[in-house]
C-alpha cells in the first residue's frame, strides 16, 4: 500500500499554500512532514483528510485515485486525521465521542460500543472510563481517544498534526511507542511537525516543505543542520556593518521568570541599550511570544523585575506599559493591530497624537495622505484595512506608531512580505533605532535575524539557551542552536 500525493495545488487568493506538492509514503513507514509554520503542511494535510478541496492534483491510495470532498469521504477511504487540537466533543462522554460518526443503525448499542472501545484501547495500551466526561480528559488522553476511534473506523493512513503540543512527557513516549507499533503493523503514519528532535527520534523518512513546496526528502538519520537548512532556506552571509552606538540602558530584566504559555524562563537577566536591536530566534512556539507578551505587560511575569528607563514596570498593566513608551506589534496584523472594516483614515484618526472629541475628517484625510506617502502604502485614505496586502498592512501599523517609543516589540515584522517590502519596513524600523528606540523582534527568518540584530536570543523549548553576538554568529551555528544543540 502506498499513499501518493501528485502535484497538489491549493491557492488562497494570491497565497500559494500548496504549489505543486508531490511525494509518496509506503506502508509500514513512519514518515515525517517537516516545515516552519506557514510552509503549507496543514493545508496539505487538510486536503488529504478531506477538510478542504485542492484546486488541482491527486491523492492516490493503494493505486486508487480518491475523490475527497469531505472528512467522511477520507475516513471511508481509510484516511484518518488527528488534529492538533483533538476534535473531541467536551460535554459528551468518552463512549459517545468514540461512537460519534461510526456507521450503523440509528439506534446506538452502547453496550456493544463499550466492548469495542475496551477491545481497541486494550490493543493500543490505552485505558478509558467510557462514562467519563470528555472535558475531564487531558489533551493527551483526548488524542488517545481519537486515535482509538480513527483506527476502529478503519483508518489505514493515520495523519497526526503537531501531536505533541500540550501533552505530557509520558504521554509523548506512549504516543511514539504506539505510532511505531502501528507502522510496524503496516499502517502509513504521517507525522506533521516543526520540531526537529521529534522527527529525528521517531521517523524513518522525512519530507521537508517550505513556502508551499517540497524542498527536500531524506531517509533518517540526517544531520539536523541539513534539515534546518532545508526548512529555512539558504543562509547568505550577513554583510559587515558598523558596531552599534550603544546608548544608556533602556530595558533591564533581572531574574525574570515567565512560565506562561510556551515560555519556561527562569531567572533570566538581560540589559538592552538604547538603539540596540535584539533578535529572538527559535522554532515557532518556543517561548518567544510569551516573552514578548510579558515585556508588553499583557501577561504578568511570575517573578523578577522589568525596569524600563529606570522605573520598575513589572506590575503595570498593558495600558500603563503603552504610556511608559512600549509599543507592541504582534504577528496577527489584522487581528491584533488593525481593525477590519475601518479605513486608513479612521486608523490614523484613532491613533492621532491629539484626540479632541470631534474628528476633523479633513485633517484626518491629509494625515492619512501623508502616512500613505511617508510609508509608501498602496491605498487611499478610504481603503479598508482588510483590503490592503500584508506588506501595506505592516506599513500602516508602522505609520500608526506613536513618535516617542522607547521599546518596540515585534513578532515576525516581515512575514509574508516580498523582499522589497520587507527591506522598506526595516528601513523604517531602523530609523526608530537611530532615534534611540530599543527593539526586540521575533523572527523565523535566519537572514533577517543575522542582518538586523545586534544580539540574538535563541529560544528552545521555552528557554533562552544562548545569547549570540550577531556580528560573529553565522547561519549554521544559529541553525544548530534553533534545533536545540551546539555545533560540535
Amino acid at each position: 500500500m502506498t499513499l501518493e500525493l501528485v502535484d497538489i495545488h491549493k491557492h488562497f487568493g494570491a497565497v500559494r499554500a500548496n504549489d505543486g506538492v508531490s511525494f509518496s509514503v509506503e506502508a509500514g513507514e513512519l514518515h515525517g512532514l517537516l516545515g516552519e509554520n506557514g510552509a503549507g503542511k496543514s493545508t496539505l494535510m487538510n486536503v488529504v483528510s478531506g477538510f478542504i478541496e485542492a484546486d488541482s492534483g491527486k491523492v492516490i491510495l493503494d493505486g486508487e485515485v480518491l475523490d475527497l470532498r469531505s472528512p467522511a469521504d477520507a475516513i471511508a477511504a481509510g484516511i484518518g486525521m488527528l488534529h492538533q487540537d483533538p476534535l473531541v466533543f467536551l460535554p459528551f462522554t468518552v463512549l459517545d465521542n468514540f461512537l460519534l460518526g461510526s456507521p450503523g443503525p440509528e439506534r446506538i448499542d452502547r453496550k456493544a460500543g463499550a466492548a469495542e472501545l475496551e477491545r481497541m484501547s486494550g490493543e493500543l495500551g490505552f485505558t478509558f472510563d467510557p462514562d467519563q466526561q470528555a472535558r475531564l480528559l487531558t489533551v493527551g488522553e483526548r488524542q488517545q481517544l481519537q486515535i482509538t476511534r480513527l483506527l476502529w473506523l478503519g483508518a489505514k493512513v493515520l495523519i497526526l498534526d503537531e501531536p505533541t503540543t500540550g501533552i505530557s512527557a509520558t504521554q509523548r513516549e506512549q504516543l511514539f511507542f504506539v505510532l511505531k507499533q502501528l507502522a510496524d503493523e503496516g499502517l502509513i503514519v504521517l507525522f506533521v511537525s516543526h520540531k526537529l528532535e521529534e522527527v529525528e527520534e521517531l521517523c524513518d523518512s522525512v519530507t521537508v516543505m517550505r513556502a508551499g513546496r517540497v524542498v527536500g526528502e531524506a531517509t533518517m538519520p540526517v544531520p539536523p543542520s541539513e534539515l534546518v537548512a532545508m526548512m529555512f532556506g539558504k543562509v547568505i552571509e550577513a554583510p559587515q556593518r558598523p558596531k552599534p552606538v550603544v546608548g544608556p540602558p533602556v530595558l533591564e530584566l533581572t531574574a525574570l521568570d515567565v512560565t506562561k504559555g510556551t515560555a519556561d524562563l527562569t531567572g533570566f537577566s538581560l540589559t538592552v541599550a538604547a538603539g540596540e536591536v535584539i533578535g529572538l530566534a527559535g522554532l515557532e512556539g518556543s517561548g518567544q511570544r510569551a516573552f514578548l507578551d510579558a515585556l508588553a505587560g499583557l501577561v504578568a511575569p511570575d517573578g523578577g523585575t522589568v525596569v524600563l528607563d529606570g522605573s520598575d514596570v513589572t506590575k503595570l498593566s498593558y495600558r500603563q506599559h503603552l504610556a511608559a513608551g512600549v509599543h507592541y506589534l504582534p504577528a496577527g496584523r489584522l487581528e491584533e493591530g488593525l481593525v477590519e472594516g475601518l479605513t486608513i483614515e479612521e486608523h490614523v484618526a484613532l491613533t492621532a497624537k491629539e484626540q479632541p472629541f470631534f474628528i476633523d475628517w479633513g485633517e484626518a484625510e491629509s494625515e492619512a495622505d501623508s502616512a500613505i506617502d511617508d510609508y509608501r502604502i498602496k491605498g487611499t485614505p478610504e481603503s479598508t484595512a482588510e483590503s490592503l496586502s500584508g506588506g501595506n498592512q505592516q506599513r500602516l501599523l508602522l505609520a500608526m506608531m506613536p513618535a516617542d517609543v522607547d521599546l518596540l516589540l515585534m513578532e515576525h515584522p516581515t512575514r509574508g512580505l516580498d523582499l522589497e517590502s520587507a527591506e522598506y519596513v526595516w528601513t523604517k524600523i531602523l530609523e526608530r533605532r537611530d532615534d534611540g528606540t530599543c527593539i526586540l523582534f521575533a523572527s523565523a527568518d535566519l537572514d533577517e535575524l543575522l542582518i538586523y540584530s545586534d544580539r540574538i536570543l535563541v529560544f528552545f523549548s521555552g528557554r533562552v539557551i544562548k545569547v549570540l553576538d550577531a556580528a560573529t554568529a553565522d547561519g549554521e551555528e544559529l541553525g544548530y542552536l534553533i534545533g536545540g544543540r551546539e555545533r560540535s
Partner: protein
Amino acid sequence: MTTRTWGSVAVPTVASVGAAFALSALLLWLVGAPPLEAAKLILQGAFGSADKTANTLLAWTPLVLASAGLVVTFAAGMWNIGVEGQIIMGAIFATFAAREIPGPAWVVVTATLIAGAIGGALWALLVGLLRTKGNVNEIFGGLGLDFVAFGLATYLIIGPWSRQGIASTSGTDIFREEAWLPTITLFGASMPVLAVAMAIAATVVVYYLLRGTRLGLRLKTVGKSPRSAYLLGIPNDAYILYAFAIGGALAGIAGTVQATGFHHKLVPAVSGNYGFLGILVVLLAGFSAKWIDPIALFFIAVAAGSTQLDLRLDLDSAFGDVLLTVTVLFVLFGTAIAAQKRRRRATMGAEP
C-alpha cells in the same frame, strides 16, 4: 483595493425590498384581494386624516428613539436585547417624575424626560456591567432584565401606584395634564411635534456621534475588533458601558414618550414592543442611523394602516405583520448573500 461603497449596500437592499413587495402582492392576489387597493388602504389607514397622521407620528417616535439607541449598541458590537426593559424602565422613572414633581408643564415634562433617560441608561448599564464584569452575555442578561422590568411595572401598577380603590393591570391613574408630552394643534389634530423633533434630533445626534467623534470611532473599533482595540490601548469595557448608557438613555426617552405622550399613564405593556421592532428596523437599516427614520415610518404605517384591510377588504389585519416580516427576512437574506460575496472577494489571500 476595495472601499466601502454606497451601492454595495443599497443595491441588494432595494432588490430585496422589491422582492418582498412582489411576494406580498402575490399573496394578496392569491387570496383574491387587489394588491394596489390594499396598498392604498394601508396608506389611507396611516395618513388618511390629520388624526391618523398624528397617531402614526406618535407611534413612530418611540420606535425611532429605540432604534437610534440600538444603532449605538450595535456599533459597539452588542446585541441589546434588553432594550424592551430599558423602555419600560424609562417609562417607570418618567411616571415617578410625573407623579411626584410639582410645578408648571415645562418643569414636569423636562423632569419626566430626564428621569426616563436616566432610568433607561441605568437599566442598560446593568446589562453592560453583567457583560463586562460578570461575563454574562448581553443577550441573556438583557432578556432576563426585560422580564424583571415588566414584572416591576406590573407590581407598581397593581401595588404602590394602583388607582384609588381598584388594583388592576389596566394601568395607573391618568397623569395630571401638566405631565403630558405637549402637542400642537395642526390641521385640526394634536400633532406630537416635540416627540417628532426629539426623534429626528436623536437620529442626527447618533449619526454624527458615530461619524464625526472620537467616541463613535472608538465604539466602532471596539465593536469590530475587541482584540485590536485593546492592543491600541482602548479600554474595551469602558466603551461598552458608554454604548449601553447612550442606547439605554434613548430607549428610556422612548418609554417616556409612550407613558406621557401616548398612554398618559403607566401600563404593563408600555413598551409597545417597539424595542424588538427597533432591532428589526436597525437590521433593515444596515446598522446605520441614516435610514432608520423612513424605515421606522414604513413599519408604523404598515402596522397602523393594515387595520383598514380588515374592515374594507375582509382581510385579517395580521397581513401587515406578514408584509413586515417578509420584508425583513428578504433584506437580511439578500444583504447576507451580498456580504458573503463581498467577503469572499476581500479575504482572498487569507488562509482559512
